[in-house]
């Protein structure tokens, strides 16, 4: 087996490999940096940042499901100013590549303001705009479930940054291709999908919803086929590079996701189960790629589509 080239290019950013820990499963890298050299990763997406500090939801926030889990963390984070002042300096110490800054918001102004601040951070390579907050009660419509709102957020963010903007989509919609097209029209540089699927559990001891928030986001291997199908649909709908997320837990899953249309991938729930999973996947990607007959992993992107 010759050397397999794992590098990919994401909206002008060259990544050593397509493996990126997903937002909310990696913190700001501190804890994982104690387990392995996180510089082996292509990049990582930090915990979703909002304008104000957020405690998030009450307990319980976590439930198990078959081949998956529900989370209703509720975007707990210290707020964009604290992230920039307190977390990013430490990131620079432990990680020497550009990071993906995941950004949330509850109004166009907030998205603009958060992204404007993050735009000034040198180490941020990509802004990943989370327009799906199914477990946050903000009143009003979910940005990610309406094509016009999705396009508006995209435009608002593009006004304040020159960094690549990837819109992270919610799967809890009727037509994900339509949402992706709206983001493309709004000027997005890429699409990241999927966020979690809306789900819930009932506690048989109390006969009440298990999560304090009632609903939570489903992640883990159970959602992989859904994520894969949506990546396929978005690949057909837009010409933008895609970061594919949802239930990936092996190098083979990475390859499936790339074949469906992903340029790079994010791995979330799997990190919680096996903290070393991203390292293992990076190490096993070469032999998996070789078995598929490619010498450059990026050749897989979209190759399952006709033509």
């Amino acid at each position, binding site marked *: 087996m010759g050397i397999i080239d794992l590098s990919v290019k994401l909206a002008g950013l060259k990544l050593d490999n397509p493996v990126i820990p997903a937002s*909310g*499963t*990696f*913190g700001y890298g501190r*804890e*994982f940096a*104690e*387990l392995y050299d996180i510089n082996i990763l292509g990049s990582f997406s930090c*915990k979703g940042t909002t304008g104000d500090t957020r*405690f*998030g939801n009450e*307990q*319980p*926030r*976590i*439930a*198990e*499901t078959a*081949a*998956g*889990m529900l*989370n209703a*963390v509720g975007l*707990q984070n210290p707020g964009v100013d604290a992230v920039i002042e307190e977390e990013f300096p430490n990131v620079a110490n432990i990680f020497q590549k550009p990071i993906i800054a995941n950004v949330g918001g509850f109004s166009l102004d907030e998205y603009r303001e958060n992204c404007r601040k993050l735009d000034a951070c040198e180490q941020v390579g990509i802004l990943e705009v989370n327009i799906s907050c199914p477990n946050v009660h903000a009143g009003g419509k979910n940005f990610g479930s309406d094509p016009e709102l999705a396009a508006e957020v995209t435009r608002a963010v593009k006004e304040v940054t020159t960094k690549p903007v990837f819109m992270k989509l919610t799967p809890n919609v009727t037509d994900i291709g339509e949402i992706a097209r709206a983001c493309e029209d709004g000027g997005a540089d890429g699409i990241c999908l999927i966020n979690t699927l809306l789900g819930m559990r009932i506690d048989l001891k109390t006969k009440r919803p298990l999560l304090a928030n009632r609903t939570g986001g489903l992640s*883990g*291997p159970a959602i992989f086929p859904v994520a894969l199908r949506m990546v396929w649909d978005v690949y057909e709908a837009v010409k933008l590079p895609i970061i594919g997320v949802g239930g990936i837990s092996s190098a083979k899953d990475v390859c499936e996701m790339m074949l469906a249309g992903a340029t790079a991938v994010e791995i979330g*729930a799997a*990190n*919680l*189960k*096996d*903290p*070393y999973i991203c390292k293992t996947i990076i190490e096993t990607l070469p032999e998996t790629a070789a078995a598929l007959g490619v010498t450059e992993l990026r050749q897989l992107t979209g190759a399952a589509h006709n033509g």
Partner: protein
Amino acid sequence: MNETILTLEHTRQLTPDTVEMVLSGDTSAITAPGQFINVALPGKQLRRPISIANWSEDGLLLLVRIAGEGTVAFCASPKGTQFDVLSGLGNGFDLDDHGKKPVLMGGGVGIAPLYGLAKRMIERGETPTVALGFRSLQDAFYLEEFAALGCNLSIATEDGSLGIKGFVTDMVRDHLPDRDYVYCCGPLPLLRAIDALPQFTGGQFSFEARMGCGFGVCMGCTVHTKHGPKRICKDGPILRKEELVWE
């Protein structure tokens, strides 16, 4: 923290829903009583966080309550089963802080981490006062073991079938009024009642929570404290009396 493989050496049923398990393997990541391990189970997405009751160089002791599907399977595992474990998790008890008159209080399976705590206090030349509460005689376990360590042991059962009748909090209030510092572990209502006892000027409270990762990255186990949000898995499971917030 490390990830390691532990081997099940021995299982003993203690009560209808509590099991003693001894596992062998690398315990080097464990630095204090009150820490826990997060055990991967076949076919389960989430690991199960279980208190370390005691540990030595070659292995560790668990006292496990059979609570749901995961623990049912875990406790029924045959001897020799190997488990993928994240070890040495959490902050553990601080043995330096407790002044001259501490008491170790536990309820039900909450007594588990108190065993290793008592052992280490004895190794430091102290004689721990231990107060344990159970529903009834048939729910009580590990009493001989605590006594054999050399603790001053008091037992309370709610139905009076063993020891003093009533709650362990009432027993401590009535029979151990000189105790002014508490190390405790048990169900939330018990911890809340212990915090309400006026005799304690300080204490270390071990909390449980549903967890995602168990090592601090997912924010699944965050609780309110007077010092801001804390992760039970990483900033805990031990929280100090002065920071506790109750709804």
